[in-house]
């Protein structure tokens, strides 16, 4: 826990200073989780604020401060889902946009080593996002929370409100789907690609 139960209890009773303390303690972590869930850095702060607005208006429904963190993750995942659904709806209008990697590539032409490093990272981000793009939002959130955020099954049980064995089955299936996409991408990588070969190679190595 990044904050004491007593602060959560005070915030639950409507203390705005206590709520600000919670936001200050959790915002960085929540923004990180959101950025890995949605994959669009420009919208991370917006989704993060939505999470805290929802927290503010639902804090009185929190049964005990002990379950605060899973509760917070649940709100984060839900806000990320909502964002992804909205994004999917307006995706068509943005199909002509340059991908993040292409933009970084363009910047890198004029930049030095730092830029190159950023291009490499952007390549990894884009590759993972493309893998995750092939699976459902549920599977995507599940895998990110488990594999990237490093949450335990116990913590995930509290977030998803399902038992461990059900969670394991869902995780197994989600992993299989990503593995399949990963294998397929490796096969495709052997073929000539239109994208930047160096960044893609870095991502897959």
């Amino acid at each position, binding site marked *: 826990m990044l904050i004491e139960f007593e602060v959560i209890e005070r915030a639950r009773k409507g203390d705005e200073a206590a709520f*600000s303390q919670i*936001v*200050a303690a959790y*915002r*960085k*972590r929540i*923004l*990180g989780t959101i*950025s*890995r869930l949605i994959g669009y*850095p420009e919208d*991370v*702060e917006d989704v*993060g*604020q*939505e999470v*805290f*607005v929802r927290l*503010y*208006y639902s804090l009185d429904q929190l049964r005990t401060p002990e379950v605060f963190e899973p509760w917070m993750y649940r709100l984060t995942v839900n806000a990320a889902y909502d964002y992804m659904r909205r994004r999917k709806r307006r995706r068509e209008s943005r199909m002509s946009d340059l991908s993040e990697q292409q933009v970084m590539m363009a910047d890198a032409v004029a930049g030095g080593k730092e830029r190159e490093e950023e291009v*490499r*990272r*952007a390549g*990894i*981000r884009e*590759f*993972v996002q493309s893998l995750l793009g092939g699976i459902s939002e549920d599977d995507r959130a599940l895998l990110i929370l488990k*594999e*990237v955020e490093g949450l335990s099954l116990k913590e995930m049980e509290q977030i998803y409100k399902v038992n461990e064995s059900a969670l394991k089955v869902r995780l197994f299936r989600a*992993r299989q789907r*990503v*593995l399949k996409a*990963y*294998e397929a991408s*490796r096969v495709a990588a052997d073929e000539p690609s239109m994208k930047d070969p160096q960044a893609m190679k870095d*991502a*897959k190595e």
Partner: protein
Amino acid sequence: MDYFESKLAALWMRYREACPDPEPSPEFMPELWKRIEARRQATLNVLFRRWVEVCVFTAVLALVVTTLMAPRWQRMPVYQSTYLDVLTAADFSDEVVVLPGGEVPGDLQ
């Protein structure tokens, strides 16, 4: 499969490194409070609108019911007959029945 699984596990780690927790902008907190206030205002507006809607609906309903029922209420007399009709119809006996012994029946006392 194990080969790909281990590669994928490594990829998750690299993804984690490639996506560090972003630093919130200085505008994060002020913007957040603005949104909280805006949501509160929106909720109040919705509640007020609902209340107004309920009032208007009730008033319209009352008006319609009154308009429809008024002619019927006006036609409907309060009494079915006049006082004289009631008196005429009543079977009054003018004679006092005197029982032997001078007793008067209870209902005539």
